Structure formats: C-alpha cells, structure tokens
C-alpha cells in the first residue's frame, strides 16, 4: 500500500507529464509539424488531445493538492511500489517527450524507403482489352477514368493530391502512355542493386494513417547527365515515359530531359484521395 504523501508525489508528477504531452502536441500543431507524423484526417483528432490531457492533469493536481486523504487510494490502479520501478515507468513516458523536443521534425526519406522497398509497379492484373482505357472491373473504373483524363494532356502533371492514383493509372495502362511527356516531383532515392545501372527513383511516401504504414511509391528515372545529386534531394523531373523491364517486371521509366532540385514541399507525404477524378477536375480548374 502506498502512503498518502507518496501518492501525492506520484499525482503531481503525473500531472506534469500529462501537461508536457499537451504542450508537445500543441507545439507540434503550432509549428504545423503534425503532418510529419500523421495524416491530416487523424491530425484533427490529435489536435484535440491537449484538451482532455489538460483536464486530466488538472484533475490529478487537484486531488494531490486539495484531495482528502481518504479520497486518494489506489482503487485498482497500480502505483509503482519502488523507486526503481517509478523511475523506469516515468522514464518510459519522458522518453518520447525528450525525443520529440530534442530532435527536429524530419520527414521520412531514403533510409526508410530502403527498408520498406519502393513500389514501382502497382496493378496486379493488367487489362487485356483492345480498347484504350476501358475496363470491366468496377474497382479499376476510377483508374481508367483518370487515365483517360491524363492522356489528353500534352504534358502529364502528377499532382501531389492524387499522386498514388496518378501513378496507379499510368502503371495500369503503361503501354498506352509510352512516349508521353510527364512532370513529377519527389525525393531522390537510389536503389543499391546493380540492375539500376545509374538510374534512380523519384519517390514520395504514401501515408494512410501514420508514419508506421508509410509506403514509398515512385517512378524509375533515367537521367544521363544528372548523376551527382545526393539521395533525399527534392527534385522535379521532366521527361518522356518509357516501358522497360526492371527486376523482371515491366516498369515505367522516365527518360529525363531535365532534373531540377527543389525545396522540400511543406507537406512531404502524399495521401489517398476519396475520388481522384473529382479531385483532378478541381485541380485542373484551379490551374486555369
């Protein structure tokens, strides 16, 4: 059984930890840094967290400072028995806060991409139909509708808002898009394998929920003149689409005409869009 004074100390300390968590989240959202960690949809809920956290801290502090001794008891909640245990437990809570405050926020890059493996091809079943951009599969209808729109463009733009859908649509009808001109930006990623032969990948992380499920997507780039840029540089590629065989799979490749270094965009990751065709229409009207 813990004595009254020790429970008070625990409560004061816990209140401080909760408050620090609230301050950290508030700090992240003020810095507009939450998008390094979670999707915008989830960020909304994360931003609300400081409210209950502060109330919880307030509740604990009130119990510790003004609560009557009889009211504070361990009603089924374990308070650590020894100092070493308290140290270990509170250390666990302080560790993420320390890490969060001490290191600057940084987006995932090549190191994570190398572990996860960049996806260069997406569609499993290639449509075999003779007609261009037609499909019987209702689930592929969105991609073929988007592919039809992309095909009419003199230079295909890859908007970050529909990055994964655009890559999916291009990949699905890769032979039809051969020799089309494209502009795409992302970070530079080099695969270690010998098969890349001086080529690199322009990639972005697709995040569904949080950074744990971030998947790097990309297109192979063949740039004869540009080989000196370091990995993780943000670049804009302009060039013609080709279909090559890479690691035994038919893969889209851009034969780059120009490679321009960019500043990292304010939102480094890309997210899925609920309706990419609708989004495309909006982006096109906005561009005009």
């Amino acid at each position, binding site marked *: 059984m813990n004595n009254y004074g020790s429970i008070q*100390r625990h409560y004061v300390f816990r209140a401080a930890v909760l408050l620090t968590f609230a301050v950290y989240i508030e700090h992240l959202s003020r810095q507009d840094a939450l998008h390094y960690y979670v999707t915008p949809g989830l960020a909304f809920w994360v931003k609300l*967290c400081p409210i209950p956290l502060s109330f919880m801290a307030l509740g604990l502090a009130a119990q510790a400072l003004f609560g009557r001794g009889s*009211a504070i008891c361990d009603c089924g909640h374990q308070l650590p028995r020894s100092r070493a245990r308290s140290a270990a437990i509170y250390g666990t809570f302080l560790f993420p806060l320390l890490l969060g405050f001490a290191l600057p926020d940084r987006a995932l890059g090549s*190191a994570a991409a190398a572990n996860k493996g960049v996806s260069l091809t997406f569609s499993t079943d290639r449509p075999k139909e003779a007609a261009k951009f037609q499909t019987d599969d209702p689930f592929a209808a969105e991609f073929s509708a988007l592919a039809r729109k992309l095909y009419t463009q003199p230079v295909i733009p890859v908007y970050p808002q529909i990055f994964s859908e655009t890559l999916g649509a291009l990949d699905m009808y890769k032979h039809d898009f051969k020799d089309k001109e494209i502009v795409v930006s992302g970070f530079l990623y080099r695969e270690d394998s010998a098969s890349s032969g001086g080529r690199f990948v322009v990639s972005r992380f697709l995040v569904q929920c949080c950074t744990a*499920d971030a998947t790097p997507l990309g297109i192979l780039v063949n740039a004869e003149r540009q080989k000196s840029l370091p990995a993780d540089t943000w670049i804009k590629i302009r060039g013609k689409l080709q279909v090559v065989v890479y690691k035994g799979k038919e893969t889209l490749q851009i034969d780059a005409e120009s490679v321009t270094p960019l500043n990292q965009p304010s939102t480094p990751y890309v997210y899925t869009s609920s309706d990419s065709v609708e989004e495309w229409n909006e982006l096109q009207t906005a561009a005009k």
Partner: protein
Amino acid sequence: MAAFSPIKMLPLLLPAAFLIIPVVLWLPYHLELLDNAYLYTFKTGFIGILLEALPFVLAGALLSSLIGVFVPDEAITRWIPRRVFPALLFACLLGVIFPICECGMIPLVRRLMRKGMPLHVGVAFILSGPILNPIVFTATLTAFRSHPSLAYARMGLAFAVAFIIGLILYITVKSSPLRLSIPRGGEAEHHDGMRGGKLAAVFTHAADDFFEMGKYLIFGCLLTSLIQTFVVQSSLASIGARPLGSYLFMMGFAFILSLCSTSDAFVGAAFLHSFPSGSLLAFMVLGPMLDFKNAMMLLSLFKTRFAFYLFFLIASIVFTGAILLSGWL
C-alpha cells in the same frame, strides 16, 4: 505534503542510466545507429505511431472512466445476454456500434469487466471490435479493390475467431485472470469522497488509466519503430517463400508491425503479388488481435499465464482459419 528534495527526484533520472548499458554494448557493432538518417527514421516512426494511438487511448480511457463513474454495476450485467451464444454474438457485434481501435479497446473492456462483464464476452469484444466495424470494412474493401472477397473473408474470419475463443474461454477458464481483482461495488462510495465531484473523478480515473496503459503502449511503439528502422522488409520476405512459411511470415509480420486496423489492409495489399491471399487474410486478422503494441497492453490487463494462453489461442485459430478459407479465396 512532503517536500520535493533533489535527491528524491534522482530515481526519475535513472532510466537515462539504463540506456548507457545498451549503448556501450551495442554501439561498436551497430555504427549505423550514429547515422542521423536512422535516428530520424526512428524518431518519425516512433512519434508517428504514438500520436496515432493517442486519441484512441484517450477516448478509451475517458469512455471507460465515464462508465466507471456513471454506470451502475448492475446495468452492465443486465445488458449482456445471460446465455453463452447470444452473449458472444452480442460481444462480436458490439464493434459495429463502438468503432474503437484496439488501443482504446483495452482500457474500456477492463472497466467493463470490473463492472461485471464476463470474461468470454470481454475477450470476444477485444478481438472482434477492431476488425468487425464499418470503418475497417470500407478501408479493406478500398485496399483490395480487385479482390473484394478478401474483405468479406476478413470480417468472417474475425467473427469466427472471436466467437470460438470466447467459447473456449467460457469452457476452460473458471477463475478471474484479471491482474487486479477488486471487490465490486467498492467504487461508488469511493468516488463520493473525491474532490470536485464526479467530473473530477472522471478525469482523475482517465489519467490513471492512461498511465497504466501508456507504459505498455509506449514500449510497444518503441519496439515497433526500432524494427521498422533496422529490419529490411524484403530480406524478411524471402523467409516466406514456401507455402506454409508465407502464413507464418505474414502473421509474424503483422505482429511486429503493429499497424492500426484501418490502415493495415493497404500495407497488406502491397504483398498481393508475392504472397497467397490466405496469408494476407492471416495478416489482416491477426494484426488487430495480436501485435507488439496490444500484446503489451493485454499483459497489463491479464495475468501473464492467461495472456500467453490467449496469444496461443489467437495465433493457432487465425492460422487454421486462414488456411481453411484459402481454398475459397
């Protein structure tokens, strides 16, 4: 009130000292740890999982303490059907109304079980809740647009596994496996003594829940992000080349990745070309039921022996079920 003296704060700084040992032993062999890229990958992954789980854990803690303070004990027992089969059916479908992620589920169920929810119902709810709900179903259907049968199979298998495990527990476990068993009915008088009335009690209890769950959650996030930072996923994939190996691999993969049940389908879909669909089913059913993060949290809820019994049941039934269903997929 006892004064804070610097010497009393010292134990709180001890964890830093714990870190010195692994650093000294590891560092000469893992110089890449010093590489900033790894450090930042780790940080981004770790904080990302933690922030993702935080709203769910807080919601679970708040909901559980609201129930703890405002819902009388008898009410819970009255709502749950008395006979086993309707009770398990009720538990498996509760997730449709309470679409909470597994992180929020455990504090909530702990409270419900203290209020008299039977063990088999509680466990069936923990297992089915994170999968059998409209949000996860829609996400799975979107991820497997070309193979909708996988989304249906996921729902079906999750239901079957939760139901069967609930039944097995009903038959085999008689004594309470809860880590802390407090006499029921003791809480009501206790809250009245709290300063600031019932609302303050809600937040104080939520905070206690948060600290109890939080240490397991943070530890789980830590291990998960370490693995994500240092393990190359394609090197793991070669283990799963053989037919049965792929099932074990995908289940192990689900365990160590500790993804949220709404997003794991998208990760699983990336393996559609290289793995049999049965193994992807095992991945998507096992992950929300049992992974690093929630194994830690289950260990906080149940006694160690029972927790491992439960882990074994989950793994073996998901494995068997996925293989049986693979013929249909």
